[in-house]
C-alpha cells in the first residue's frame, strides 16, 4: 500500500479505538475506575484520624477540641453549592451554550477557591490561635494531612476548571471531544465533594468536643 498524506474520504479507514465493549467511553470508564481507588486513599487518611482523635496526648490541643463548627458548616455549604454550579456547567454544554458553560465553570472554580481560602483560614487559626501544628500530637498530624490532601485535590480541580475555562475562552467554545473532558472534570469535582461530605460528618461533627 502506498502511503498518502491525506486521509482517504470514502475508503474504510481503520482507527485505533473503534468500539467499546462495555458501552461506556474509555475515558469515562477510566475516570470511574480511578475514582473508586481514591476511596482507599481517603479511607486510609480518615482511618488514621479516627485512630488518634480521642487519645490522650502529652501535648494538646487535639483538633476535636477546637473545631469551629459554624465556620466549617458554611464552607461545607459552599463546596456543596459548587457541585451544583458544576452540574449546571455540564448541562449548559449539552445545550451548546458556550457562554453559560464558561460562567458556571468560573463559578465552580470560584466557589472551590472560597472553600480553599476557608481551609487556609482554619489552619491559620489553629496554628496561631491554638498553637496546634503538624507536630503537636498524632491527632493533629492526622487532621492536617487528611484535610490537606483533600484541599490539594480541590486545588487540582480548580486548576482543571480554569483550564477548561481558558480553553473555551481561547477557542470560542469547547469542541465535541471536550464535552467528555468537562464531564470527567465534573465527576472528579463531585467526588472531591462527596469525600468532604464524609469528612464533615465523620471528622468534624462526630468527633467535635468543642461544643461549637
Amino acid at each position, binding site marked *: 500500500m502506498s502511503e498518502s498524506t491525506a486521509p482517504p474520504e470514502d475508503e474504510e479507514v481503520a482507527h485505533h479505538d473503534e468500539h467499546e465493549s462495555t458501552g461506556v467511553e474509555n475515558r469515562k470508564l477510566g475516570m470511574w475506575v480511578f475514582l*473508586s481507588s481514591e476511596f482507599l486513599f481517603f479511607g486510609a487518611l480518615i482511618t488514621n484520624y479516627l485512630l488518634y482523635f480521642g487519645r490522650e496526648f502529652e501535648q494538646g490541643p487535639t483538633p476535636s477540641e477546637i473545631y469551629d463548627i459554624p465556620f466549617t458548616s458554611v464552607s461545607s455549604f459552599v463546596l456543596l453549592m459548587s457541585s451544583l454550579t458544576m452540574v449546571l456547567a455540564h448541562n449548559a454544554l449539552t445545550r451548546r451554550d458556550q457562554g453559560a458553560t464558561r460562567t458556571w465553570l468560573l463559578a465552580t472554580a470560584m466557589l472551590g477557591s472560597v472553600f480553599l481560602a476557608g481551609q487556609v483560614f482554619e489552619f491559620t487559626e489553629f496554628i496561631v490561635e491554638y498553637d496546634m501544628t503538624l507536630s503537636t500530637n498524632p491527632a493533629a498530624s492526622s487532621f492536617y494531612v487528611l484535610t490537606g490532601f483533600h484541599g490539594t485535590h480541590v486545588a487540582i480541580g480548580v486548576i482543571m476548571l480554569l483550564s477548561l475555562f481558558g480553553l473555551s475562552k481561547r477557542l470560542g467554545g469547547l469542541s465535541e471531544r471536550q464535552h467528555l473532558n468537562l464531564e470527567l472534570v465534573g465527576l472528579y469535582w463531585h467526588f472531591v465533594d462527596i469525600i468532604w461530605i464524609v469528612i464533615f460528618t465523620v471528622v468534624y461533627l*462526630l468527633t467535635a468536643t468543642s461544643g461549637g
Partner: protein
Amino acid sequence: MTEEHHATHPQPAQYVKIAVVLATLTAVEVGLYYLNNSLSLGWINTALLLILAALKFLIVIGWYMHLRFEKRTLSRFFGFGFVLALTLYAVVLVGFGVLALNR
C-alpha cells in the same frame, strides 16, 4: 455520546431542587449536632448523622455524578472500591479497638 443521554438528563431546575435538598440535609445535620450538645443523644446522634451523610453522599453520586442513569458496570466498579475500603479499614479500626466495645 452525551447526546444520547440528553433525554434522561435532569433539567437545570431539577439540579437546583437537588441542591436545596442537599443544603437542607446539611442544615439538619448541623442542627442535630447542636441538639446533641445539649441532650447527649449518644449512639442515636451517631446513627442519624451517618444516615444524613449517607443520603447526601448517594444523592450527589446518583444525580450529580449521574450514576443512576449510567450503565451498571460503573456502579459496580465504584461500589466495589467503596465496600472494599469500608471493610478493610473497619477491620483495622476494630483491631486497634477504636470501633470495638472498649471505647
